[in-house]
């Protein structure tokens, strides 16, 4: 049962967007896996930044610059604490998960040689496939896939078999965006380390639901996007172990990433600035910190329990609809339901739902290999957040029934 202290009505009041109408109907927002909504507390921080202390950081002697620098670095500490990261300089601000993955993939060019292998899970989205394919093209390394079963769970026996001494790098999401599967990430990391491989975990879909502990997990890299966890778009985190971040070459040149520049030679700044070239998303970083404060004020335990209840409720209700099939039925799931109705294209369902004010995602969710695996053009994906309600799920179920009647 949900904790009595979990007051959904109070929480919903924090999100102004939830009271708007779409197509003349109250908005029901079930596209949280794509991006989450932003609470007033975070919006206030953004407004306050631009109203009071907008400045470039790390280089000004004036007060505004100092205030902005302090707030930005304070956000870094918040992120460090939230993810239980050993040192603040292991937190690199990026524009998001995709940027973070590309940063690592680029850096790894110098560590891989022809014939090395890198492993990718079968349930990655394109951002965690394409940069590695590009890396393999550059280095001659071979990309191999950890297969999954029909439930949408990785086949761990196959993973262990794939782990030879040739494997230098494993990349896998913590939670699948298309299926909601929570991967046994600790087992994946430990096995890779035993085989001498480094691991990058794409935590974009996990971070809104699971408070990951970097020191306990022991991943070499972990990536997060702020906008999926109540923060703004265009900002995210790359966590990297100090030893790796020191070894990796800088990704972009300019701004704060230098120590000294002459036309003959440039030496690079220490971590984390080595990877933070140019003017960063200062306001975004500060707001990211505020978003973590907000989510922690509700509590990740309470969020997980509530969302699990939403998931179970929605799964039961949706499965009552004849011909409805859910893709991704792993035992460990976050609040994501990907489904289709037999004989109906997912776009059609999504379009009808939109007319009813219900926002879902349709299509391949930037994870085409998963759709190929199930031999479907795409799915309808409803992804729930801690501010959604069972009444909204009832509305979704009614909407899907209505769409089905119209479309079949």
């Amino acid at each position: 049962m949900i904790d009595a202290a979990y007051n959904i009505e109070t929480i919903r009041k924090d999100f102004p967007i939830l009271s708007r109408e779409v197509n003349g109907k109250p908005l029901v927002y079930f596209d949280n896996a794509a991006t989450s909504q932003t609470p007033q507390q975070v919006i206030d921080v953004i407004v306050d930044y631009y109203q009071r202390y907008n400045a470039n950081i790390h280089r000004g002697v004036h007060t505004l610059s100092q205030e902005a620098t302090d707030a930005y670095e304070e956000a870094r500490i918040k992120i460090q604490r939230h993810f239980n990261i050993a040192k603040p300089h292991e937190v690199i601000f990026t524009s998001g998960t995709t940027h973070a993955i590309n940063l690592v993939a680029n850096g790894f060019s110098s560590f891989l040689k022809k014939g090395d292998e890198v492993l990718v899970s079968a349930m990655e989205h394109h951002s965690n496939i394409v940069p590695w394919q590009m890396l393999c093209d550059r280095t001659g390394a071979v990309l191999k896939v950890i297969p999954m079963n029909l439930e949408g769970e990785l086949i761990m026996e196959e993973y262990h078999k794939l782990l030879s001494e040739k494997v230098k790098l494993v990349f896998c999401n913590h939670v699948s965006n298309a299926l909601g599967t929570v991967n046994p990430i600790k087992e994946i990391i430990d096995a890779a380390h035993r085989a001498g491989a480094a691991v990058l975990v794409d935590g974009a879909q996990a971070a809104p639901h699971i408070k990951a502990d970097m020191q306990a997990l022991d991943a070499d890299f972990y990536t997060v996007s702020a906008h999926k966890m109540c923060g703004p778009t265009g900002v995210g985190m790359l966590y990297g172990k100090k030893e790796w971040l020191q070894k990796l070459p800088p990704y972009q040149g300019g701004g704060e990433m230098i120590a000294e520049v002459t036309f003959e030679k440039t030496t690079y700044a220490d971590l984390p600035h080595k990877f933070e070239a140019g003017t960063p998303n200062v306001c975004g970083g500060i707001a990211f910190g505020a978003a973590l404060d907000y989510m922690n004020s509700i509590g990740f335990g309470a969020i997980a329990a509530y969302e699990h209840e939403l998931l179970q409720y929605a799964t039961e209700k949706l499965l009552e609809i004849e011909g409805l099939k859910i893709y991704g039925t792993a035992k460990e799931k976050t609040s994501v339901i990907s489904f289709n109705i037999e004989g109906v294209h997912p776009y059609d369902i999504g379009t009808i739902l939109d007319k009813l004010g219900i926002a879902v995602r349709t299509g391949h969710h930037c994870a085409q290999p998963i759709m190929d695996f199930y031999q479907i053009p795409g799915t309808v994906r409803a992804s729930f957040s801690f501010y959604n309600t069972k009444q909204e799920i009832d509305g979704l179920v009614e909407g899907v029934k209505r769409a089905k009647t119209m479309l079949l």
Partner: protein
Amino acid sequence: MTIAEIQDEIVEEFSMFDDWMQRYEYMIELGKSLPLIDEKYKTDDNLIKGCQSKVWVHAELQGDKLIFTADSDAIITKGIIAILIRVFSNQKPQDIIEADTDFIDKIGLKEHLSPTRANGLVSMIKQLKLYAVAYQTQLN
């Protein structure tokens, strides 16, 4: 009927519905009644790029008129092409090339489609017109 007359007819039909749910229902019905394309024409060559759902269009000349057949894996998209085919099929290529498509704005179709679908709609019209251009060249 001329292309303009058919367009007027469609605008009138759509104006009978109060809300967009009913208009969608109507489009779905149109999609269901669309004469299907011959399976042999459902090739990659006939696939329209720019549509997230798949759309196949085939054109052939009968006498001096162009006949379009089409299909889609999504029924609302199919309804949209059904409307386009009603407007453009069985018309002379030159008339198709010169035709205005202001009926789309008049029935509010574009603003009520998602951006991907709206792009798809533009691609579909472009493709139908391209067929017309190709066949007009043949006729000359």
